[in-house]
């Protein structure tokens, strides 16, 4: 009797174990890759030269460079769209590798390790462009999330024009400054320096000289504290140390912003004056 009972129990347990498993539905992973950009993940056998280069950069620097994606409508008149293949290949070689990641890892290893975004989006036109009107440049970069950076205008960037390339790289650091701002916060003390004196939407009606007199490194920095922070970083990345020091000594607000931001970056392992000289040398002395 006891044996019969144990057998019955075992049969019932076995049945319930197997039957209960059969109802489980397969978990669908279809939505896993859905992203703002709907990035295409290509199988390796279909890779082109740029895919191989991106793979190498990913392995060397941990940055996934995205150049293929569905054109994305942000608002009815605002598009993101991918760059032309040839332009993207040349850009990745020259700007991504030679001017951004390589010198960053070599000269600022700590900063590189902690602060480099894990994704970089290449865009054919500008942030605010339209597929049929690529000349409109109301925004250069993409800094919406602190793990992701991006730059626009790649189809129109003439890589043989040193001034244009220098400007582009400086703007890249401007966009990265937004990431740093979002990640760490520029702080109340920075906001207090120019509180109440921002130009807001009237920034474009000011002259650069007026902006400097009002305590902004660039008139666009007068738009709002976010841009004030980014343009300060941009200025330090663009101009040699001596020029910067001369300028900040002419204006108390500029000096306070300079002091706050150089410390903000030095604390994280980045000397912006050194960065300026590295970028400048790479572009103009090679």
């Amino acid at each position: 009797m006891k044996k019969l009972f144990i057998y019955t129990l075992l049969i019932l347990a076995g049945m319930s174990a197997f039957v209960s498993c059969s109802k489980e539905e397969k978990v669908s992973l279809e939505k896993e890759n859905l992203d703002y950009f709907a990035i295409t993940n290509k199988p390796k056998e279909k890779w082109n030269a740029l895919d191989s280069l991106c793979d190498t950069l990913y392995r060397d620097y941990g940055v996934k460079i995205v150049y293929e994606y569905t054109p994305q409508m942000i608002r009815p008149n605002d598009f993101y769209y991918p760059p032309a293949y040839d332009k993207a290949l040349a850009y990745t070689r020259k700007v991504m590798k030679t001017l951004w990641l390589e010198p960053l890892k070599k000269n600022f290893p700590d900063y590189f390790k902690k602060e480099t975004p894990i994704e970089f989006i290449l865009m054919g036109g500008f942030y605010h462009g339209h597929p049929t009107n690529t000349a409109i440049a109301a925004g250069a970069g993409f800094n919406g999330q602190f793990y992701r950076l991006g730059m626009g205008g790649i189809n129109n960037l003439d890589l043989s024009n040193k001034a244009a390339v220098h400007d582009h790289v400086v703007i890249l650091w401007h966009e990265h400054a937004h990431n740093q701002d979002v990640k760490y916060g520029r702080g109340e003390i920075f906001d207090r320096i120019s509180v109440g004196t921002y130009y807001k939407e009237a920034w474009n009606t000011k002259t650069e000289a007026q902006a400097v007199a009002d305590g902004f490194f660039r008139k666009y920095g007068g738009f709002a504290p976010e841009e004030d922070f980014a343009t300060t970083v941009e200025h330090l990345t663009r101009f040699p140390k001596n020029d910067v020091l001369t300028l900040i000594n002419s204006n108390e607000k500029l000096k306070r912003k300079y002091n706050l931001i150089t410390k903000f970056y030095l604390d994280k392992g980045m000397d912006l004056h050194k960065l300026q000289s590295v970028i400048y040398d790479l572009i103009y002395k090679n």
Partner: protein
Amino acid sequence: MKKYLFSVFIFLICTATLSSCKKFLNEPFDNRLELKNIEDYAGVVKKSYPTRFDLFNEVLTDNFKLVPNLMQDAWKPLYIPIYMFKDDYQHTLGYTSPATAYSHFYNKIYMANLVIDGVLSSQGGTAEKDAVLAEALLVRSYCYFILTNLFGMHYNPATSGTDLAVPLILEVNKENRPSYSRSTVKEVYDQVEADLYKAIEIYEKNPAVVPTNPYRFSLGAAYAFATRLNLYKSDFAKTVLYADKAIGQKGRVLRTLKTDYDVLLKSGWEFFAQQFNDPSAHPNIIMAVQSEYVHHPFGNNWGGFYLAPEVLTQIANNDYRRSIASNAGTVIDNATFIIKNNTGWQTSRYVYFNMEEVLLNRAEGNLRGTAPNPANAVLDLEELRKVRLINYTALNTGAMSNAELLTEVYKERRVEFLTEGLRWYDIKRLGLSVAHKMDQNSSVIDATLLPNDKRSALQIPVNARVGNPVLENQLNPR
């Protein structure tokens, strides 16, 4: 013996049980306050001041444009339909809306009615009782004034006898579940006037007991209210009369915006926003309310509604009112908002009446009356401009017609009262049209409110219709 003891025991128990209830039953079951003394009624009337739940009306005006990506998602089902002049919005959300305004103002009317019903038979001095009665009348009058201007067409002597406003409830309900039908705009305006003038009469008779606290109806606040009421009725002689009286009470003292701007430079946005509507630092504020945060859709960087381009062009670069604007989002969003209130989730302060309104009401009254007095209107207009402009220069008013001066007055009203909930009533009374777009970069206009549009009388909210089916047959025509 055992039986005897048992009977005695039972007798004692019954005595104790039945007699012990007597005192207990004399007490109110939930310790509620019984209104007996004048102090009790004064306490109720202090609690009966409404919050500015009508402030959502800024969304309906031409002052704001929609920037959906800079809007808290939870607010979209509420404020986007309102912006599109639709009657169906998510009324169950507790944020400032016609639905919340309707129930809130009626709650306050209930409290005012409670005081009006009982205060005269309470214990206390006659003058004090009269003053409390007057204050309650003012609260009720103000609440009905706002309700009729939200849910009825604007006052028009030709049609106000038939235009529907809101139910007029003048007594504390003693029935189980009464239903109320809507009164006409004329009936409600008549009641508003009757309550207001009776209160003013009492206040004028007993000035010693009239409140002077800026968070309550003072005599100056009652006059300021009378100025607005008469302006909305197009009775310009009385508009000027009561404006004179309000100025006589409070003095023609305007906000010196430069002082606020200096506070901003010194202490930053947070403190600036906290002190902006503080009557103790701003004698121009005739009456204010400290209440919960109700300016959800505008006046902050997540509300979704930002200053329309047309209104921005009306604020000159040398105007301090431009200095109290800030930006939301990026330069591409082009989203500007004006900060006048606390922008955190704490309590905030809102203005009922200020001297700027009294002055501009008087200027308009002086220009539109049967015997226009443009010289006085110019004086008032310039008085305001002097404390708003950096490097003030007077207008060349000598060459201006009355109509041109009036345009200047309207321009000042629009800019001065941004985010203060007055523009919607100006749109209604002046018969202006409003065009709203869903996408600001598009040329398509998605909703247009025509002059004297039927939709300017907001629909009676669903929460009011539930349980009062009479209203279902009295909805505003569409």
